[in-house]
């Protein structure tokens, strides 16, 4: 079987740092009585890009929402097992949700800019953490927008409504908004699925840039994208019982070229062919 994908040499060099920043240990998840994820364990390595792949409905979004405890906003939802971050199990009730979310940012599937100006969107996080100094906020805004590769497009329109931006710009604004809080980990839930191919490429580029300073966990349906940008890949799959399990985890250049499990291969090939 022929795979058109080859990992680039510089990507391998990025893998030298193998210290996990987040570790899932026997993680299971329930919505009410319904179990949706069962016994998942895998690490997320620092300053790398980990891609989370799998058919829709297999719990990828749920995994992301568990890492920043966003699932707690749903009274029905319940998590079991451990998610270790900074040496602590964050699923333990005592963990401070607000502080955690400051350190772990999230970008959603559909761009969700807040009503208000571009500027207000970017400095939303710093403001609620008490930064009031104008100069400081301006600096944060400029730096975040530059990081998100949006600065040049909007620098003269910072006071205009964020809702008037194009879809791709809105999504980069949401990334900038997340970066403004200087998170350590960024979770991206199919960030390009609602965007045109050109915007998609821009966002991929951006992630490549960000990898040096941030840890990125990205959910994607696009196998080519996953193969292009990720260092590690985790494949989730829900069988007939509709409960998702981790089928395979490994370095992208290994999993995409020579998957261990037949299921992974089928999924990747089905997606590619």
């Amino acid at each position: 079987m022929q795979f058109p994908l080859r990992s680039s040499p510089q990507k391998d060099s990025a893998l030298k740092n193998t210290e996990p920043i987040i570790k899932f240990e026997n993680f299971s998840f329930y919505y009410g009585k319904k179990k949706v994820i069962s016994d998942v364990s895998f690490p997320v390595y620092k300053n790398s890009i980990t891609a989370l792949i799998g058919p829709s409905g297999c719990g990828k979004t749920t995994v992301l929402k568990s890492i920043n405890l966003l699932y707690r906003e749903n009274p029905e939802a319940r998590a079991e097992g451990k998610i270790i971050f900074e040496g602590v199990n964050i699923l333990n009730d005592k963990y401070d949700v607000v502080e955690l979310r400051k350190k772990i940012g999230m970008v959603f599937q559909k761009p969700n800019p807040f009503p208000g100006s571009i500027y207000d969107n970017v400095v939303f996080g710093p403001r609620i953490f008490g930064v009031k100094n104008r100069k400081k906020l301006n600096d944060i805004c400029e730096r975040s927008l530059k990081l998100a590769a949006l600065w040049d497009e909007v620098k003269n329109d910072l006071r205009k409504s964020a809702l008037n931006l194009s879809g791709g710009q809105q999504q980069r604004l949401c990334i900038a908004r997340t970066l403004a809080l200087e998170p350590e980990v960024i979770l991206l839930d199919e960030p390009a699925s609602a965007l045109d191919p050109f915007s998609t490429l821009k966002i991929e580029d951006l992630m490549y840039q960000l990898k040096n300073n941030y840890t990125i966990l990205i959910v994607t349906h696009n196998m080519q994208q996953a193969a292009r940008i990720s260092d590690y890949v985790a494949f989730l799959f829900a069988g007939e019982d509709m409960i998702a399990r981790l089928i395979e985890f490994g370095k992208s250049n290994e999993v995409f070229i020579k998957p261990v499990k037949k299921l992974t291969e089928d999924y990747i090939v089905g997606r590619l062919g």
Partner: protein
Amino acid sequence: MEKNNLLVERPIKCRIRYKYILDKAFKEVTLLASIISVLILAFFLGGIFLKGYRWLDWQFLTGVPSRFPEKAGILPALIGSVWLVILTAAFAIPLGIAAAIYLEEYSKKGVLSDLINLNISNLAGVPSIIYGIIGLAVFVRFLAFDRSILSGALTMSLLILPVIIITSQEAIKAVPRDQWEASLALGATKWQTIRHAVLPSAFPGIITGIILALARAIGETAPLITIGALAFIVNIPRTPMDPFTVLPIQIYNWASRPQKEFSEVAAAAIIVLLLLYLILNATAVIFRKKTEKRIR
């Protein structure tokens, strides 16, 4: 790219504490605000009950108004209210449902039906006393029905028609259309399909709307005052052309008198009125529960 942390790290911990406290406190504030109106109301209702329950007896229910509070009764007002609600229902229900069916099933969606819908929603917002003035000019004067139950019921029908139309429209809209095509395919005409495949499912929703509209009709006071229903009525109305009074107006009349006893008699009449109102509401709630079950 160097990560230069622009945020002040140190005060974050205590700031977060403070955020949580504020969040919790605010939740309690909103909860309090939500129940305070209900609590105030409960307090008032309790007060009214204490004020009026002593006057509630057989003589009060079957007696006629009197200059002496201990002899005062609500029978003519009660009968007037019943007459009014029945006649109003007889006019407004068929017209309201028919209009809703037309707007949902027959009228072509376009400028005209938008206009009618807009018109109906505006009619629903017209202050009730303006309906009273129209009733005075049209039914009492122009059609010379005088200050009769008929005038009152026609006025009240105009008032509650928009409510019935709007709620019936919602109920018809909510009916799933899986039977619709099957019925047409069997050769049924449009009206037969509506009659047998749509209306039965919409029925509980329509009934809910009608009952709530009638609950409003039973409590409305201002438009009836305007058409002149505040006669001192000692005769029980026997035909739709008789002069009449209704419970709310009787209450208003008693509440406006200076003697303390009459304010208590008014409280007793309020208890009766509220009972009627609550019974109607409870019925509506039951029907609504039924609708919700059907849709699920």
